[in-house]
């Protein structure tokens, strides 16, 4: 059992336009990527819970050419709205980083 952040080589969040946050989870080798994918730990339900969004609005896309997983969610606070605390959305990765991979 390890945290996702201990397995991934890059684990970053970024705004994709002002309405979405996108997470890039990259692995340095195919076996780590496949292990995480096969574990099923990165799923819509978990992401939706962590970020308090509707599971239907969560996109999870494996991008195997570079051993990566992309996750995209809508921003609850859109960029620059009064309660927003991260305009570029580049510090939103922690809940994903803490997901335990069995």
């Amino acid at each position, binding site marked *: 059992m390890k945290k996702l952040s201990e397995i991934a080589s890059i684990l970053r969040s*970024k*705004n*994709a*336009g*002002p*309405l*979405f946050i*996108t997470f*890039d989870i*990259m692995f340095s080798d195919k076996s780590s990527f496949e292990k995480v994918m096969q574990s099923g730990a990165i799923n819509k339900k978990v992401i939706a819970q962590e970020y308090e969004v*509707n599971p239907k*609005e969560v*996109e999870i*896309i494996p*991008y195997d*050419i*570079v051993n*990566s997983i*992309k996750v*995209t969610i*809508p*921003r*609850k606070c*859109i*960029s*620059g*709205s*009064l*309660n927003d*605390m991260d*305009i*570029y959305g580049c510090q939103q990765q922690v809940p994903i980083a803490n997901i335990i991979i069995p």
Partner: protein
Amino acid sequence: MKIVALNGLLGYGYSQEALERVKKMKIDYFGVDAGSSDPGPFYLGNGTSFTNRSAVKRDLELVLPHTILNKIPFIIGTAGGSGANVHVNWLLGIIKEIMNEQKITCNIAIIQTEVTKNYVIEKIRENKVIDLSPNLQLSEEVVKNCNRIVSQIGIDPFLEALDSPKIDIILAGRACDTAIYAAPAIKAGYDPGLAFHMAKIMECGALCSVPMSASDIMIAEIEQDSFVLEPANMNRKCNVERVAAHTMYEQNNPYFIYEPDGVVDLRESYYEQITDRSVRVKNSKFQEAKDKTLKIEGTKLEGYRTITIAGINDPLTIKNIDMMFSEVKKFVVENMINRILPDEFNISLKKYGEVLPGNISSDIPQCSLGIIIDVVAKTQDLANTICALARARMLHQDFEGRKTTAGNLAFPYSPSDIICGPVYTFGIYHLVKAENLGETAKISYMKVGE
């Protein structure tokens, strides 16, 4: 056809040595992306640029004399950071200054992309608006409250501007960053799938190289069935992994690039290392959309902001912070009764350094907490008043067991309250269906210099 991207954002700088190398090559087009919505809604709303004027001028004045004297068109998208008319004029002013100082003349095609409120209202009435997020809905009332609206153009207006001979510079308002580099390639008859994919990677400058940097020059060469990317700076290299990974960056989906005209399908894209510094890409496919769309962005004035920044070191005060702030809010509302309505201001508390649930089991946190009391109100004067009231009350707010009765807040500054000025938010960030993708663009031509 060889195209150069000056860098990932005009004003971010680039290596002069790399530019000198590029100047010796035969280049067909230069381009640069000059803006982004990433820094938030303020800049579109306020009509100012998030880029620095001196840095923008530096980036242009080193390269423009070369491109103009050698008759290489230079294409600029999203002028002035946000691409409204005021931003285009700001950048035009910088170009005029350079032309006058260097005693050269040039022909500029200016593409304005601002739209009127009526344009958007018509689209709503014709049922031609598409929401991008459930968290931002559009109504006629929202449109009426917007102070500035731009449309993000695709390649069409660029293709029209490229038609006119002897154009030295195309200066466009809000534009897709891909359009800057895809337009000349598509104009020359190259495959649009390859042209858009090439443009999507190079619009970030040398960000897809190793070491990565948006502050450097990228060279792309497009051919019949492929394109090749190579950083201009000899200290950088492109490799297959970086180039392939770049299509993930700040995109919702790594397999598709959405354009006003259609979508680029990258599922079959093939990446090949051809020298130790360059990568060839093949098989990116363009599919034309049935419904063509333009993205529109509009901002509204939300009010004026005043903030107070403070630190709290006392563990018991930190434990009571949320209760204290709710008391402060109650106090402010009561104090201002019959003077302002509750919907004329917004007061919130932003906390930094808060111990997050699950991190530490201790009931009382053992670290300091940074707070911002954040007030946005309908006038600056009102924001100042509410912030002053809230700050004073927060400083002395009582709570059970309090021992620190001299004050709750450690202010780093005098004055403690900081006036931040107008606050804008995005009211519009939507797609509209458009039969003619040039319908929002106004193109004019002028000669500048001497």
